[in-house]
């Protein structure tokens, strides 16, 4: 069943006097429960595309359909995880995770029951009372993911969430992310510039062309899970993706 559909999304980047066509008609259909990784040359607008799906930006042409209905604003069924987490430094970890529930007016007791489950899932229970400045970058991203999952969204939108992590932490989170996806059955859109990350996580990898970008190729990845970053069987797939990407990067 189609969960999300992007129909001919066009977006201009506006600078003072001139404008730049960033997205040149992106079409993409995503089924319920898919894990789609978006890769592309830097500046191609893949993060902008994600923000349009989130409803944080509006496209200049085209539309996003969620369950067949056009997206006009941000909503709790499509939750974004930002690159640097965007955690609230004035709140403890647990209060960060419960933020969306509090906004929805859910009573304290119930909130802490729900957040407990996700703090546990992300192995954050020990840090429930910490402030974010006391956490490592990897821990912060765990909190950001827990904060998003608590909302129980249909779609998780992740904008290069592991870009700032060291290699070991990233490898660990790549495995956990697969487990979370299998456990929660969320539909996930995951922007990354890391091709290996894309092949480890995705059920499909969408390769963006250079500006004005479209989806150049949609590559399905059928391989057993949990996949590890160092798995050599993924290398040919990574080569495929890189051979699609290389000419685009050169154009840029």
């Amino acid at each position, binding site marked *: 069943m189609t969960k999300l559909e992007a129909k001919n999304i066009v977006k201009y980047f506006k600078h003072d006097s001139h404008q730049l066509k960033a997205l040149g008609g992106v079409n993409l259909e995503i089924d319920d429960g898919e894990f789609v990784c978006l890769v592309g040359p830097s500046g191609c607008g893949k993060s902008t595309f994600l923000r349009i799906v*989130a409803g944080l930006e509006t496209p200049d042409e085209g539309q996003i359909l969620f369950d067949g209905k056009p997206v006009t604003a941000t909503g709790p069924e499509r939750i974004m995880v930002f690159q640097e987490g965007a955690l609230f430094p004035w709140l403890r970890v647990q209060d960060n995770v419960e933020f969306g529930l509090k906004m929805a007016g859910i009573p304290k007791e119930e909130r802490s029951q729900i957040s407990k489950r996700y703090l546990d899932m992300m192995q954050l229970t020990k840090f429930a009372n910490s402030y974010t400045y006391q956490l490592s970058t990897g821990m912060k991203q765990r909190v950001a993911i827990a904060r998003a999952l608590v909302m129980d969204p249909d779609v998780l939108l992740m904008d290069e969430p592991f870009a700032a992590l060291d290699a070991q932490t990233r490898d660990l989170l790549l495995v956990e992310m697969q487990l979370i996806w299998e456990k929660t059955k969320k539909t996930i859109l995951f922007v990354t510039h890391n091709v290996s990350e894309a092949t480890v996580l995705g059920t499909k990898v969408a390769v963006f062309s250079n500006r004005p970008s479209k989806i150049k190729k949609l590559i399905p990845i059928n391989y057993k899970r949990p996949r590890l970053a160092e798995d050599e069987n993924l290398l040919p797939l990574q080569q495929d993706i890189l051979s699609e990407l290389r000419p685009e990067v050169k154009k840029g």
Partner: protein
Amino acid sequence: MKANIILKKIAFYIIIVAVWQAISMTNVWPSNIFPSPYEVGEDLAYTAADGSLFFGIGTSILRLLVGLAIAIGGGIVLGIFMARVEVVNQTIGSLVLGLQSIPSVAWVPLGILWFGLTDAGIIFVTAIGAIFAVTINTYTGVKNINPHFIEAARNMGAKGTQLVTSVLIPAAFPYMISGFKQGWAFAWRGVIGAELLFSFLGLGFLLNVGRQLNDVSQVIAIMLVIMIIGVVIDGVIFKRLEDKVMSRWGLR
């Protein structure tokens, strides 16, 4: 603070008092023009003993607190509107910058004309002297909020006053603290200046009484009290608050 810094400070103040005492003992100026530290201390003891000192301190601080509370409340509201509503910034914003350049004592004639020789008049001068510092710092703070904080909060369902109280104010708080600190400094100058000119109770009034009685030692004694209160509030209350907020927000 390190012990040797404290020692240096103590030595410095002992030297000042000793030099002061030495000059007064030369009798270059008569003691009614240049009193000795001992005479100033004696005067302080008299005003403390008859209660007028503490009544003066209490009156001034009460006016300060009321005026500052009004300034903080009003300044936060005005600052947030300026930061979030462009038309308010373009119109009222320019006026705020102009009004901030008026020294608070320049409001005294208006305060007297509008409120008469009352507490309300002095509080008016105090509040209006402090409000624009709070406004401008709140404005800067809200303008400098990481846009991802606001996007994440809206994505998780925060809107309207919820967004203001759960994100805008806490996120801007480090800047707002500097606004409170500046505001308090302006308010303290404002309240003393107004009391001096209104000549209606408080430490400013005691200064004025000292002048009318040609009592230089009373004038100096009250000035010392004003200075000590300033140092205590600044160094104890605001410094602690600032340190705590800065480290919690991960800014230090």
